């Protein structure tokens, strides 16, 4: 038995769907070995135990959409050695950031009969808008491979390998045939951040950008190609305004 390491980790949820923290539990083969190296000091979805900070690693899922959350993230930052934010919500505000482009009062009244009971902010913002972030995992949801890469890198003291180039590079390494060129299917792969392993092209589908923009995407150059694939103004507008609506696409 390796001696139990004392690295403590806390998993925090902000406004989100739980999918990214679930990714940790989806590491079925690695979960128990991981717990021999990392102690989960706070992970509400999994355990009733909640130890006070500080924590070596904090993993934060979700965006900031309430005044309480804006407070809480500051406290978490203070308590955490390394702050890792995971998923589209935490890195770009997530799908709920669509409110940033609309009137949140109206949203509130569409969903609730007595909107005055609901405390919410007018915007959904990424964690980095509030505190300094050490590492980001993109994706809606994040990739299990990248999560394990990050955790093993932190444990080994190396830099995690998280390329910020296009999905195309992964698509080609997998040996997939480009759906944009060979089928005329609109694909956001050329401007989308790598990390998923080109899941959509692998099922003959165009990438819809759930990992958000790559480093320096050239969106204007892609737009005519999407049009050629049959996308109209409406669709073009929608396709960049979904899971990473508030990210910098160009």
């Amino acid at each position, binding site marked *: 038995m*390796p001696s139990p390491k004392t690295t403590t980790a806390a998993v925090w949820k902000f406004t989100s769907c739980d999918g990214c923290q679930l990714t940790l539990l989806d590491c079925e083969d*690695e979960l128990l*070995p*991981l717990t*021999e*190296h990392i102690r989960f000091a706070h992970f509400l979805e999994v355990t009733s135990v909640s130890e006070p900070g500080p924590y070596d690693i904090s993993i934060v899922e979700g965006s900031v959409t309430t005044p309480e959350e804006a407070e809480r993230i500051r406290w978490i930052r203070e308590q955490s050695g390394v702050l890792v934010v995971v998923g589209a919500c935490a890195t770009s505000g997530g799908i709920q950031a669509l409110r940033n482009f609309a009137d949140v009062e109206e949203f509130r009244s569409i969903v609730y009969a007595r909107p005055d009971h609901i405390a919410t902010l007018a915007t959904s913002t990424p964690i980095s808008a509030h505190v300094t972030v050490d590492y980001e995992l993109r994706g809606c949801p994040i990739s299990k491979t990248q999560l394990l*890469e990050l955790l*093993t*890198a932190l*444990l*080994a003291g*190396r830099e995690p*390998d998280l*390329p*910020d*180039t*296009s999905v*195309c*590079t992964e698509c*080609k*390494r*997998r*040996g*997939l*045939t*480009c759906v*944009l*060129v*060979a*089928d005329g299917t609109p*694909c956001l*792969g*050329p*401007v989308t951040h790598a990390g998923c392993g080109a899941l959509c092209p692998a099922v*003959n589908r165009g990438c819809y950008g759930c990992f958000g923009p790559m*480093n*320096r*995407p*050239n969106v*204007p*150059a*892609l737009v005519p*190609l999407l049009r050629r694939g049959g996308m109209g103004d409406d669709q073009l507008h929608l396709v960049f305004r979904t899971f990473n609506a508030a990210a910098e696409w160009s």
Partner: protein
Amino acid sequence: MNLVLDLDGLDALIRVLRDDGRVVVGPVLRDNAITLAELDSAADLPGGWGVEIGAGHYRVRKRDDAAVFGHSAGPQSWKRFLHPPRRVLMSSDGNEFRTAQDTAPDYAFLGVRACDLAAIAKLRQVVGGPAPFVIAAQCTEPGELCFCASMGCGPAAGPGYDVALTERIDSGGHRFLAAAGTVEGTRLLDRLPGRAATQEDITLAAQDVDAAAQRMGRAMPEVDLRDLLAANRDSAHWEAVAERCLTCGNCTMVCPTCFCVSVEDTTDLDGNAERSQRWASCFEIDFSYLHGGAVRTSGAARYRQWMTHKLGTWRDQFGTSGCVGCGRCIAWCPAGIDITEEAAALAETTQLGGE
């Protein structure tokens, strides 16, 4: 010795290679494209399928005949097998370092065109590795994006093949003229059912290949490309390309000679480490990362790097051009950026010395 094989003969060829323990790789129709995969028999070949190809455009189409090699370069190249997308380099337990087991099988490549034969040579010059057994397919029907003739790499297969096939379908039937290029090739042909080639077979095949040279869809400008690119380091044209370039890296990934790799370190929970290499691209910003930031961040600088290396500085480094004229980078560039057109645009505005 020259032999004429029919489809059964081709099938026998695959069988014999497999019996010898080789993994036979060749063209197959898959996911709306003609890709490369392991062949069990000649029935796996894309008989009757051709392609319609343009800048940023590729469609498979039904041919009027049953030709199995009637298609130009597809989305993949032999690079995947000789220089795999990911390869473990070594492992470490902290005290000892071990080279990774080389698990590459003994390959036989079937249907290698002249351009790709040249590419295999250029790639192996850099990355090394065992030579594959090569059955070339002479090019009798170049595609819309082919320019191997102007790169001096085709359409006739140059040296380096073990056997070269020339496919012909006419009133005389569907057949392949098989010519051996090496002793091993001759030995292989000896084991195949076929008839000895006549002079006519040989003449017809040569004519078909010659005619192909006249039908190339593209050509490089007739200037010294190395000088052209060296003279254009500060050209404003790079900005113009950068407006269209997605910096997605597809061109480098599909290029049969682009060899760049990045190294990745992985660790497991028991303290073991592994180093691997994976295909990298000079279009990745991190590719030129130095402490403090990347050297090449603009799209213009990255495109310039790619094209300059491919057509120019490759010669400084390896004594030959990095481009074989297969046209893949044009077809599989989603934006349809055409290296021959960009070279022509540069040539138009450049006075090279010595004229």
